[in-house]
């Protein structure tokens, strides 16, 4: 079966350098996360709290969004509601145009990737300037992030050195990481100083106080939200939490799960624009609340757990599929296990349903998820739905699959049938090399034992009990 996903995955598997870069990075992130949670009991307690906080917020979502709007508005933040990507892009462009902006400085935002903001703004003659180091690298390379926390994780220092050298010919060529980082600082400094409009995502929006919480390490997020005259924050509607106090467990879960840091360098809590007596900060703060399919996910009691996600990326760091094909192998904005459940729901099973197959169901994602999203269970649910939908327009392959499973069920329903069948399989073991076909092209084909385990056990005098 040759499908888009399989073609992309095969291509991704062929990119040795990318695979090595991702493998190295993920191994590092796994170790750092483990070291950050030395106390397993504490971790499990925190995960319970994280889940409870997010479940509570989702159960009260409409009321909390209203409360958030009310408190933000009272604080002077202007709240906008966007049904989909087009609406969100339109709102953002309107704000930029009203201020005569020709460029915006951007802090890292996955929602802005989701709505395709950069491309939209470029078409409208507005320059989007990515300021996060990883995002800058991706923007210069004209690629998409391959990881939701570390967007340029698939590139190594030599590629980045060549990229910077091409785009910043006045800067001396270097493959030294500190020098490359310093280069990004020099290049961005003028843009931070001169650009009048900044845009960011939101990690958590607190309904109780009308506060937007943003975390980052570089300072570009603070600069993008503090130095310009106007700050636009864009977020999915699910990012709301009820109380300010809820930030404490969520922040410690998020930063430790993501990169093993006890906390990020900066935690930035914004509760309004500059007051008349203040000397700096934006005169206007806008909050764009994006639905884009989230209310549909919210409608299903089981699938709703998807919206608990706090975007730490631990699931992809630990995923055997992600580690091998990388973010670009998925072909969607959100990759990895969370992408495999989120994207089919945001875009529909017809377009992205196949993503639910991009998993071995090993369960590593669920084991590390800080808010206990049962990702394998949800993957199965989506696979089931897709199979149901597939029946209607089933091709020959689906007919074959269905009947094979029926046969399988019939055989496994009776011990006698099962035993006779296994005996048959064992005696026909010599055929195995042929029947595993392409699978054995790059692997050693398994050899089936001459006698079955049942047989051997019986000989040892063991009974079925």
């Amino acid at each position, binding site marked *: 079966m040759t499908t888009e996903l399989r073609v992309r995955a095969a291509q991704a598997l062929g990119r040795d350098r990318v695979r090595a870069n991702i493998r190295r990075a993920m191994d590092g992130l796994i170790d750092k996360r483990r070291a950050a949670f030395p106390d397993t009991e504490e971790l499990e307690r925190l995960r319970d709290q994280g889940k409870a906080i997010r479940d509570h917020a989702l159960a009260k979502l409409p009321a909390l969004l209203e409360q958030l709007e009310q408190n933000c508005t009272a604080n002077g933040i202007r709240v906008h509601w966007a049904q989909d990507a087009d609406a969100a892009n339109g709102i953002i462009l309107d704000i930029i145009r009203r201020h005569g902006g020709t460029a915006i400085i951007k802090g890292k935002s996955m929602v802005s990737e989701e709505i395709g903001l950069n491309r939209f703004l470029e078409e409208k003659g507005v320059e989007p300037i990515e300021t996060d180091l990883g995002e800058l690298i991706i923007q210069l390379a004209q690629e998409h992030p391959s990881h939701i926390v570390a967007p340029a994780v698939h590139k190594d220092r030599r590629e980045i050195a060549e990229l910077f050298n091409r785009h910043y010919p006045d800067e001396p060529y270097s493959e030294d990481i500190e020098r490359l980082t310093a280069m990004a600082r020099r290049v961005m400094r003028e843009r931070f100083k001169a650009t009048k409009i900044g845009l960011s995502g939101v990690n958590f929006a607190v309904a109780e106080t009308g506060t937007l919480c943003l975390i980052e390490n570089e300072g570009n997020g603070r600069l993008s939200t503090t130095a310009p005259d106007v700050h636009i924050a864009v977020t999915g509607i699910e990012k709301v939490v009820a109380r300010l106090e809820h930030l404490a467990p969520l922040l410690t879960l998020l930063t430790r799960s993501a990169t093993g840091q006890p906390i990020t360098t900066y935690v930035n809590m914004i509760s309004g624009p500059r007051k008349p007596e203040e000397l*700096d900060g934006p005169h206007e703060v806008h909050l764009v609340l994006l639905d884009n399919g989230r209310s549909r996910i919210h409608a299903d009691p089981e699938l709703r757990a998807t919206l608990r996600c706090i975007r730490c990326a631990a699931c992809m760091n630990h995923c055997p599929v992600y580690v091998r094909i990388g973010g670009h192998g998925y072909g969607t904005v959100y990759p990895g296990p969370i992408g495999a459940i989120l994207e089919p729901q945001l875009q529909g099973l017809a377009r992205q349903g196949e993503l639910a197959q991009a998993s071995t169901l090993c369960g590593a994602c669920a084991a590390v998820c800080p808010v206990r999203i049962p990702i394998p269970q949800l993957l199965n649910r989506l696979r089931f739905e897709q199979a149901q939908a597939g029946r209607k327009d089933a091709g020959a392959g689906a007919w074959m699959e269905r009947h094979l499973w029926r046969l399988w069920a019939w055989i496994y329903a009776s011990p006698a049938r099962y035993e006779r069948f296994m005996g048959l399989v064992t005696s026909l073991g010599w055929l195995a090399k042929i029947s595993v076909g392409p699978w054995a092209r790059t692997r050693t084909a398994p050899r089936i034992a001459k006698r079955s385990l049942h047989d051997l056990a019986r000989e040892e005098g063991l009974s079925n009990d």
Partner: protein
Amino acid sequence: MTNTREQMLARLRTNPLGEVPAPELEVRRFAWSLDEAVEKFELMLKAVRAEVYHVGHDWPCLLAEQLTQAGARNLYYGPEGPLSQRLTRGWPETGPQLAALDRPIEETRETLFDQADAGFTSCVAGIAETGSLVLWPTPAEPRLLSLVPPIHCVLIERDQIRSTLHELIVQESWCKGMPTNALLISGPSKSADIEQTLAYGVHGPERLLVLIQ
């Protein structure tokens, strides 16, 4: 637009909401003595390459000395800030030039971005668990003072240090009123976006000097 809002909310309201109780969170804190808390605070800050000094009343002299060694020509500060009198009174004549930041950013943007070598602020609290400085910028000490100059210097008093963020938020009743901007700062600016290798001094300050009194 109001229409969109109503549609979005209406759609969510028709979804099964159920009764999910508000989570009862026990406040996460550690029963550290003040000495233990200060020790942890210092350890965590140093782990992310912040520079920590234990100081007495002559802290302005020590600060001036460190800044001179770093090659800083000036130190920006808020003249109405809670520590400004102590700073200016104790500042040695041979130290870097003290520069008051008391005009709106529209008038000071050029000098702050192009001239400032160091910025000095107070803080409202410290968090031992994570080695975090808690800043609530005010008209007297604006937000960019802790962000734009390449060196950020902070004075904290020992008894301002709490064990966790959770303890601080609850004890100080933050939910009753947040400032326009509240910040936790834990070390100098850094990035690991290239090969997961830490490099310090990206867009925020390259150095963070913490004076504990």
